[in-house]
């Protein structure tokens, strides 16, 4: 009997389990443990494809360290990627199509943007009724310092024709089965913004593989899906890219819809910038605290807008007090916040946080339901038990 690829996929794990007897480094094989070097402690939403969520107990710093930065993959990561032969092509509605090596990109002027990157589906687990997709809670978000040439400098070198209206990104993700490739586009106006990058570095180090080495798009203030990883092709189009991950994927209803209702894809628009949102990182939901002195902290962000205030309630929403916003701030980056509270007595409490931004948007009591659970941004809440 011939051995098919499917047989191979079934056989390899058991073969590796056998191999693990001979080599302790492979002792995870055949077990439910997930080992991802450099990502210890992250919440595993999926190991294949790799989807890792930041646990709230590590959200303590304005810049998220690489080991704590969430990972969202739609496909398999590139199995082989040789930086010495990798190239980024720029084609389509341009006068001079280009092919640039990593060395070429490194020679260009580098620009740095501190950006809060959030998966459009962050918070999906809280949607009611439930919707399909990775059931992220709070931690598919992180803030990093991204550096690399400006996309507009590359587009300028290629000479965008007047017909160029959208810029498409294709990465080297490996597509299983008949799954459509993860290809998306952004409007030319955002592509030529001074802060939109082809990022080569994250937190002053080359991008890690899980974050798109050797290059990724960085579309600041927008949903993470806009910032294509393992970038290899940029194509200028005369209209928005038409593919699964532009439609029906990553779209939002034009009108409010009843939770659970069907939505006509023709009555939707592509999701671009992030919403105004805050999350409570401490105390952890359902924690039992042994002191009435409670340190409450979290983060708040608003995509392309700025956070102007975060208010907190410790009585389930009856009264609100402004929190102390962290000193560190930058356009597109979250603000950390904190609040010291003395619980009046032992008991159960519900803590709520509500962010407001420079566009006058405030977090709603309940998020706008949509069939894929995008942009969940309801007022955050955690229940705690104080026991002294």
């Amino acid at each position, binding site marked *: 009997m011939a051995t098919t690829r499917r047989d191979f996929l079934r056989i390899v794990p058991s073969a590796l389990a056998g191999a693990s007897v001979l080599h302790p480094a492979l002792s995870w094989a055949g077990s439910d443990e997930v*080992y991802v070097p450099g990502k210890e402690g992250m919440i595993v*939403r999926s*190991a294949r494809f790799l989807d890792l969520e930041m646990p709230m107990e590590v959200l303590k710093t304005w810049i998220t360290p690489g080991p704590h930065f969430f990972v969202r993959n739609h496909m398999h990561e590139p199995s082989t990627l040789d930086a010495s032969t990798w190239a980024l092509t720029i084609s389509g509605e341009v006068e001079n199509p280009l092919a640039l090596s990593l060395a070429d990109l490194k020679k260009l002027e580098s620009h740095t943007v501190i950006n809060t990157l959030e998966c459009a589906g962050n918070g999906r687990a809280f949607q009611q009724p439930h919707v399909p997709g990775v059931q992220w809670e709070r931690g598919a978000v992180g803030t990093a310092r991204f550096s690399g040439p400006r996309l507009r400098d590359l587009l300028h070198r290629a000479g965008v024709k007047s017909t160029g209206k959208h810029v498409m990104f294709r990465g080297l993700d490996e597509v299983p089965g008949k799954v459509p490739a993860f290809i998306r586009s952004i409007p030319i106006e955002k592509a030529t913004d001074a802060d939109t990058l082809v990022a080569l570095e994250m937190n002053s180090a080359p991008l890690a593989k899980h974050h798109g080495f050797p290059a990724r798009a960085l579309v600041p203030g927008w949903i993470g899906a806009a910032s294509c990883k393992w970038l290899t092709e940029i194509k200028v189009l005369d209209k928005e890219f038409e593919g699964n991950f532009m439609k029906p994927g990553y779209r939002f209803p034009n009108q409010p819809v009843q939770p659970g209702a069907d939505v006509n894809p023709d009555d939707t628009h592509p999701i671009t910038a992030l919403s105004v949102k805050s999350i409570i990182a401490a105390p952890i939901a359902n924690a039992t605290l042994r002191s009435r002195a409670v340190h409450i902290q979290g983060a708040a962000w608003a995509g392309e807008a700025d956070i102007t205030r975060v208010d907190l309630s410790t009585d389930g929403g009856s009264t609100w007090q402004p929190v102390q916003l962290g000193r560190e701030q930058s356009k597109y980056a979250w603000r950390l916040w904190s609040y010291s509270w003395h619980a009046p007595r032992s008991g159960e409490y519900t803590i709520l946080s509500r962010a407001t931004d420079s566009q006058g948007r405030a977090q709603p009591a309940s998020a706008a339901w949509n069939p894929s659970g995008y942009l969940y941004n309801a007022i955050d809440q955690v229940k705690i038990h104080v026991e002294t």
Partner: protein
Amino acid sequence: MLRRREFHVLVAFCAAIFCGLFGFVWTTRVSAQSADLPPGPIQSKVQTACMECHDARIIVQQRLSKKAWTKEVDKMIKWGAVVDPKDRDAFIDYLSLNFPPDKPPEPMPRVSAKK
């Protein structure tokens, strides 16, 4: 042409030799194994069809109505999941029964520390 058993032994042997000689760790790979799907008459077929491309965790964390599961199964068939047409309804029933909207959330593991 290799028989399946011979192939299995060959892969195990090659993996063992390779790992032993080179101290090899799949540094950017993660466990392809995953949480088991609950028992049921169609469990092994669901496991085979779905795990071809992804982890069982992506299934066990869903909490969906039968209508939503029907959409998901049909989407996955369109995207290449090999499901015998006569098994489609059983797939939907199995998933709807085991991962309904009112089931408590599934606790997810953490990435393990290096051993």
